[in-house]
């Protein structure tokens, strides 16, 4: 059992991830379509894990993390960045704000998604070391 919040502006992908996760392992899944909606949803929902897109309208993933104050106020919540922008400064910034792991959407098959989430829920939070270019 785990509570999962999907924050993804693409409605098709958001719906797909919800179907996949709800069909497996008894997860309770809620959806939001931008960072601001996510913050609203989180007033009444305590997640164990957040699947977070970075590039979203109204409020993107990085701004959401800053507002959510992940490390300071919710250190036990795992945040998986779900993006198509690998190796970008935004991903590094997300790690600095407390994100646990980055997953590339277009690489990830559905059968891997719930496994990745299970692993993340079981793993300890770790601070990455950043290298210069």
């Amino acid at each position, binding site marked *: 059992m785990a509570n999962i919040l999907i924050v993804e502006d693409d409605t098709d992908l958001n719906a797909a991830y919800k179907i996949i996760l709800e069909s497996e392992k008894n997860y309770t899944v809620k959806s939001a379509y931008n960072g601001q909606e996510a913050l609203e949803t989180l007033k009444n929902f305590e997640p164990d894990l957040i699947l977070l897109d970075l590039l979203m309208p109204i409020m993107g993933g990085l701004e959401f993390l800053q507002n959510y104050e992940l490390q300071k106020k919710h250190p036990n919540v795992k945040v998986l960045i779900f993006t198509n922008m690998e190796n970008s400064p935004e991903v590094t910034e997300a790690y600095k704000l407390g994100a646990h792991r980055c997953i590339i*959407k277009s690489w990830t098959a559905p059968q891997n998604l719930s496994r990745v989430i299970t692993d993340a829920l079981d793993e300890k939070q770790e601070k990455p070391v*950043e290298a210069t270019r």
Partner: protein
Amino acid sequence: MSRSKDSDASSLSAHEERAQAQALFNSIGDGVITTDEFGKITRINPAALKILGYKENELLNTWFPQKIIAVDENGEAINLIDRPITKAFLSGESVYEKMYYRRKNGQKVPVTVTVSPIILGNRPVGAVEVFRDITVEYEIDRMKSEFISLASHQLRTPLSAIKTYSHMLIDGYMGEITPPQRKSLQTVVVAANRMNELISTLLNITRIEAGSITITTKQVNLHKVIEEILKELDHTANAKQIQLSLKVATRQPTVRTDPLIIKEIISNLVSNAIKYTPEEGSVTVTISSRGKQHVMVRVEDTGFGIPEQAQTQIFTKFFRAQNVVRRETSGTGLGLYLVHALTEQLGGKVWFTSKEDVGTTFYVSLPRQRQAALKPQPISVV
């Protein structure tokens, strides 16, 4: 009398020569600064003053490294020993670097700098530095990089939906499907994977060549990463009835490295192995230790192999061996170039053994602990 006239003529000529030399110096479009052997500024041209925002009397006879502050991308001052002028004096050779100078008003300006020692009678008597403001080029490269990131994101978004829904249909999330429907959907997945690979390859090559790969180091469990890769390429392998397998021959399949880059490297190798192996062949990935400090990943196939005469070029850009071009027309010739470049970025090594019509084995050796770069680096134009 005539002797006096001659000396007047020659001193006028000398005066004219000095005036011409000064005019030449003042006309140079790039910034030029000369120093004596102690680094004291002896001459400075108008272009240099404009770039730095100083007046001539504020800089002449001052100590160059102290007065003109050089900083890195983060605004941290570059140590004296790492300054190009110091390196030029110590080595006796010209030094070329990119960095930032602090203008008088405190702003950072990106510059390219060439410093050469002035040698007279076999000893350095000073240095001459030529530098150029590259703000415009820097901005163009930054915009190019942002465009590439955004374009790849926009291309990948619909691709994510195609792949996700195709997988969901195949895996029965929307109900049972018939075998012909399954086969058609597998074709869609294979095509989507190819397109995804191409976008990743183009994006990463552009970033490598611009020096703008960002590496984030984390503890990575290679066993899990490779299991994910094999699951993702499962449909591609099944379409050719190729057997994919993973062997773990070490108790410690972990490395401290960039998880996305290592995934890109191994995905490329496994995907290549599948592509260049005929139907009913096999691809085996093995993780093992290589001494105490390194982990090795081996990707072995029963494929077409690489002809001996092609083996020295296999990591070069756009190269594809003729034996596979005839049999498998898709492929950009960029995958192995990318694998090689990315593996180097992680401090690792990649090599292979191969025999035509028998198969190929690629080896990737990675240090267990990737050392983060600690020295300030010259700017990489993004």
